[in-house]
């Protein structure tokens, strides 16, 4: 079993935070995990990418061109990830959730947390990780920082 996830968004939207929490939660479940970001000049263009693989055996190669799950947090990211969009891939595009996010008054800086909650739910259903583990790590990282109530709400919004 192997799941390939590609997170994409603008630099500063918290893509790497999302990756970190998903990865570490999957590790707690006993899976092999691999993560590689884009970097250097590429990253300076503004788009932050995270390639994540979760598997029940050793992961031989860190990158992939056909993600199973593609998460897009900005317009710029959508442009950048066109080459990764494919028929078999499940896409979560912030554009598709705009109305809901506006209705619930989720601040832009919490979009990544909303998606984190959504993905955590999806992956828990596949027994890849435990949602409460993700939340626990999130709480540890962000509860002392401003905006925690909004973040907490965003995480649980999908429920």
């Amino acid at each position: 079993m192997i799941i390939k996830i590609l997170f994409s968004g603008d630099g500063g939207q918290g893509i790497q935070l999302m990756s970190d929490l998903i990865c570490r939660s999957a590790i707690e479940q006993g899976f092999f995990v691999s993560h590689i970001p884009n970097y250097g000049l590429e990253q300076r263009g503004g788009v932050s990418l995270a390639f994540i693989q979760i598997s029940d055996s050793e992961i031989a190669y860190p990158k992939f061109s056909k993600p199973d799950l593609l998460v897009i947090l900005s317009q710029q990211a959508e442009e950048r990830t066109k080459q990764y969009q494919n028929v078999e891939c499940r896409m979560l595009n912030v554009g598709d959730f705009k109305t809901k996010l506006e209705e619930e008054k989720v601040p832009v800086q919490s979009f990544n947390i909303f998606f984190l909650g959504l993905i955590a739910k999806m992956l828990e259903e596949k027994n890849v990780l435990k949602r409460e583990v993700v939340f626990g790590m999130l709480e540890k990282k962000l509860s002392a920082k401003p905006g925690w109530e909004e973040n907490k709400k965003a995480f649980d919004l999908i429920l």
Partner: protein
Amino acid sequence: MTREKQFLTGAEVVVQAAIDAGATMMFGYPITPGTEILSHWIKTAQTRLIGGQAKNLRYLQTEDEIAAGFAVCGSVMAGEKAFTATAGPGTTLMQDAMSMADGMRLPFVSIIVQRGGPSSGTVIYSQQEVNLAIHGGNGESLRLVYSPSNLSELYEYTRLAFNNAWKYKFPTVVLSDGFLMKTRQTVDLNFEIENIKSEPFVSENTQKNIRNIYSFEEELGEKLAQDKKDFEEMAHEVVKFESYKVESCETLIVAHGIVAGAAKMAVDELQKQGKKVGLFRPITLSPFPKDELNKIAQSVKKIFVVESSMGQLRDLVKQNLEVAVEVDGLYKPAEGIEAEEIVKSLT
């Protein structure tokens, strides 16, 4: 002591391996994608306790790679396990110091993190520094060069690099790349060997005169003949390779580093399709596992080289091949290669 699995990047693995190998000094200059080795070493050095023991880790960010390389030379001559890490244009500059290490048989350990070239190329990834790693200096180059294909191997070969550099006194390279350095994976670093002690070349107890320039051709010729002899003796003991599913294979893929990881997946897929494909992976690019390659090559119909370079591995293969076999390949200089592409080229 069995370690638990950790979630580490390549750079963190290198630093851990260097510390475990007994290295206590790093000289370096920032250059993507190798900078994190320097910054992580320096960060680790701020905390005095390493693995429960007080260890004194030292460092200097030098004014350029040239200074870093020569400081490593001075430091190892003083008997300290020092090392450096560099990439791309930095690897080019590093050759001045590495060639002095070649000429003076210094245990100069470096991590070379390949990125796109030539010139500034990309800061990302390639397998285009094979030639520089093995032959980058002027004159003859007798170096030990390891090419790890995953983080566990990165740890293991960095440990071996320090040991073998100090045991045999040839400049030793761990040849990695931007992808491996930036990948974070679950690894257990449970490779154990006994560390070789370092000794100073000169000290208060010696009176040595050491040179790297000679007045007469014969003097240099004689010295080089001895170096070559030493290298060949070392080769028997350190040469490393892996053959994967090569029994009765007709097409032999040859790949190194992380591309070999993708190649293994490709071999599995192709065999599922009923194709007789196997993989030969040189782990030491120098000394090259020539005998083993030829043994396997005897019974194959084609060799298929896969590399993120225009042909640096292919040229190594051809140099060492003594069997008449067709050599073809997939060459993608500075670009990553995934299993699917390899499968496609052989279908």
